[in-house]
């Protein structure tokens, strides 16, 4: 189902969703979180639970950062992590597998198997490495994120490649890559917008929901160079600004890392969806 973005005045169906991004090894995560939320980031299943119960996230996106360790081979460990998160939260789960082609296959198959019976969203398929993740998704009936570098045609091509491996249309989520606000975001914006319009005009290859995540946001110069007392607040604003703009462009799922941003986005979506100014 594709609608115009934020076109929710007459119905409540399909509002944009907000995913909380977390990871299983904090060593590979922006220092900002470690510094400001030290108690929650140590245990990934607790982290996910908090995302659901306290912060109001709609989805949880787990990055298996532990696979970035040199010579990683603890594949059964992946299953354990996923099992823990699944038992800790009822929210839909997005699993980001490895980012090195050598272990892709093992990582994705273990992810797929761990979530067997659930319907996970697996990430990330790219044009030059999509077979492993697609194989795992098809085998265990999961969906995949298809990421392409900020170009409507490349997004379309990757979807075609995935469909040609046997992925059903309703198991593909487009990630056309999002740059941080002020750092190339305008290209991402227009690409999201074009993809959405192409779908509305009847292009089946692009009629999939769009997921947008701009992890670079927490590391932009404006955040890095803020004085310590306002640094965290600046990061929230930057993350919020980027994510909200993505929503307006047409993203169906936006991913953020700071709990405060989720609340701000929720309010903004309600405000934007109201039929008139008076209702706010």
């Amino acid at each position, binding site marked *: 189902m594709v609608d115009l973005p934020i076109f929710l005045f007459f119905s409540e169906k399909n509002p944009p969703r907000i995913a909380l991004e977390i990871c299983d090894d904090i060593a590979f995560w922006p220092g900002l979180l470690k510094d400001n939320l030290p108690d929650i980031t140590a245990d990934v299943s607790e982290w996910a639970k908090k995302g659901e119960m306290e912060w109001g996230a709609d989805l949880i996106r787990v990055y298996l950062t532990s696979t970035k360790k040199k010579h990683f081979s603890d594949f059964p460990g992946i299953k354990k992590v996923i099992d823990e998160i699944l038992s800790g939260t009822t929210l839909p789960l997005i699993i980001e597998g490895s980012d090195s082609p050598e272990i892709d296959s093992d990582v994705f198959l273990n992810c797929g198997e761990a979530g067997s019976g659930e319907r996970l969203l697996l990430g990330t398929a790219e*044009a*030059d490495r999509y*077979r492993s993740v*697609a*194989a795992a998704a*098809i*085998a265990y009936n999961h969906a995949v994120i298809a990421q392409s570098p900020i*170009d*409507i*045609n*490349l997004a*379309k*091509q990757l979807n*075609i*490649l995935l469909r*040609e*491996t*046997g992925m059903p249309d309703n198991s593909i989520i487009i990630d056309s890559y999002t740059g941080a606000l002020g750092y190339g975001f305008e290209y991402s914006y227009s690409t999201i917008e074009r993809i959405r319009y192409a779908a509305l005009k009847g292009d089946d*290859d692009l009629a999939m929901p769009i997921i947008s995540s701009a992890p670079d946001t927490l590391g932009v110069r404006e955040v890095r160079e803020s004085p310590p007392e306002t640094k965290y607040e600046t990061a929230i604003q930057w993350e919020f600004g980027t994510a909200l703009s993505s929503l307006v462009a047409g993203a169906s799922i936006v991913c953020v890392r700071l709990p405060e941003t989720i609340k701000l986005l929720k309010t903004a979506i309600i405000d934007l969806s109201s039929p008139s100014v008076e209702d706010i």
Partner: protein
Amino acid sequence: MTSVTFLPSFKKIEVAEHSTILAAAQKVGIHMNVVCGGIGKCGKCIVYVKTGLVSFDEKKFEKFLSKKEIEDGACLACVTYIESDIQVLIPEPSLVQEQKILIKVSELVMTLSPSVVKYPLQLPPPSLDDPSPDLSRLLWGVEKKGGPKAELVYAPLEIIRMVPSVLRESGWRVTATIAHIPGVYRLIDLEKGDTSYAVYGAAIDLGTTTIVVYIRNLIDGAIVGIASNYNQQISYGEDILSRVNYAKKEGGLNDLQQLASNSINAVLAEAVRNGGIDSHDIYEVVVAGNTVMTHLLLGINPGYIIAEPYVPVVRRYLTTGTERAGIKVNPRAALFVFPSVSDFIGGDIVADVLATGMSESDEIALMIDIGTNFEIVLGNRDWMFSCAGAAGPALEGGEVLFGMRANPGAIEEIKIDPHTLSPVYRTINQIKPKGICGSGLIDLLAELFKACIIDRTGRINSVINNDRIRKGTHFYEYVVAWEHETGLGKDIVITENDVKNLIMSKASVLAACTILLNMAGITRENIGKIYFSGAFGNYINKENAIIIGLIPEIPLNQIYNIGNGAVEGANIALLSRKKRKTLDSIAQKMGYIELNAEPAFMDEYTRSTFLPHTDLSLFPLVEKTINLCRLQTGDKIDE
């Protein structure tokens, strides 16, 4: 000074220390492969230093040479500097070789109306009763023989000087040669006796790489002699840009002008020998060349063509004396040069159009000339759009690891068995394979695609368990020929990177076609005919060209190869004054689309970097073929 000896020819030359080996080779007249213009980028000029000292940056070699090869003295001639007396072996593949140059011209069906006519005359000698001047007597004689009116004929001084003696010494039996030059008739020769059987013209395709000469009898249009050879300007780089850059250097334009005329003269001389005629009897030379070649031949500065806003100096046909361009035929023969439309749409393309006949037809045709660059013309008798661009050298064998020109030993045709994934191929001259040329590469791409070895972006499916599919030094690769089959001492492979370069090349051609169709507001269904011009088009498999999406899909029987359209067009213009007259109007009518200034081009290009195109509905037959192939190979994800 140091001395350099080249093996196996033992040619020797003295050059300044620290010169490149390439410069020394050029100086001694050895033409080496320098696709990149001598900047160490193409890896085609491999030589082996046998004795002596040289210096080089090993990093630059890594891409092309193994450690072992470097230890054996292998280096790239263009970026290796001579430091002492040396001996250098130039292996055969590094030399510019006799190429499969296309010289076939279809039989021309048209009425002959040449621009030069010889009139054999028997004149009455003057007397006291008939004291009219010699020249008037001569020209009246021409008029009586059906030639132009005497007062319309211009006689140059050097001919007038000849008139009294030639007339009297021949007993008033002479042959006058009249040339029809736009707006005027010109008396260009006067010979004793009847020489009217000996009147010839030359039609020349002046290409960046090759020159083709046709000599024709202007009485009946018969072909008298044909020859072709390399453009000697190649020593200054293979591509246009390096020529223009050289022309900008002091004395450079003059050098290139002379090389152009020398090259033409060499090929002309061979054609004259083949025809057993006298070059003095060639009274007209028609040249079709690209814009830069035309400028260089005429000694016109081409420097402004390559800088914004890319203007050529003239956009109409030019007539001058052959002598002024240094072409050695009859000294008063006219030189007719085809008009150019823009920087990249030159006289060769106008000649292509003339050869296709599309400018005289109601049916819409798409003419594609693929060479070092590509040029495309879409239209009919009422309108025409043209565009040009860089296809990259991949389709001609450059930037492809085992790519090569269409020389002997090049794989020119290939098929892959969808079950065993083993290829069968044919090489030029049926010798052991040395590499793969353009037509072979297009076959290969289509076959890899049909066998599901590559996906639609050209990535090799590394999951397939087959000896021929393996990880190379940098990329996955497919083995086309095993070491024991080749004449190289190593396997011939095509890498994933090669495939990507090929796809990028084909994408730019297809995207350009699409842009022209969009400009004209028509679709592929409106195209009546597609013409391939140039050697490349002549040898490629049309079906495979469509399968990879090099050209829009239309029925195969509507696709034609016109061969060397430039030389064919030049032949037509040589034999038919009427057709020649239409050239200026073709050039004026043809709109030029600057692809770089066309925002939709990049989008269309990306859409085309997919086999055959992102939108498969534009290629219905390919869709069918591919589905069929997938059934055969049972391609699906390996779990």
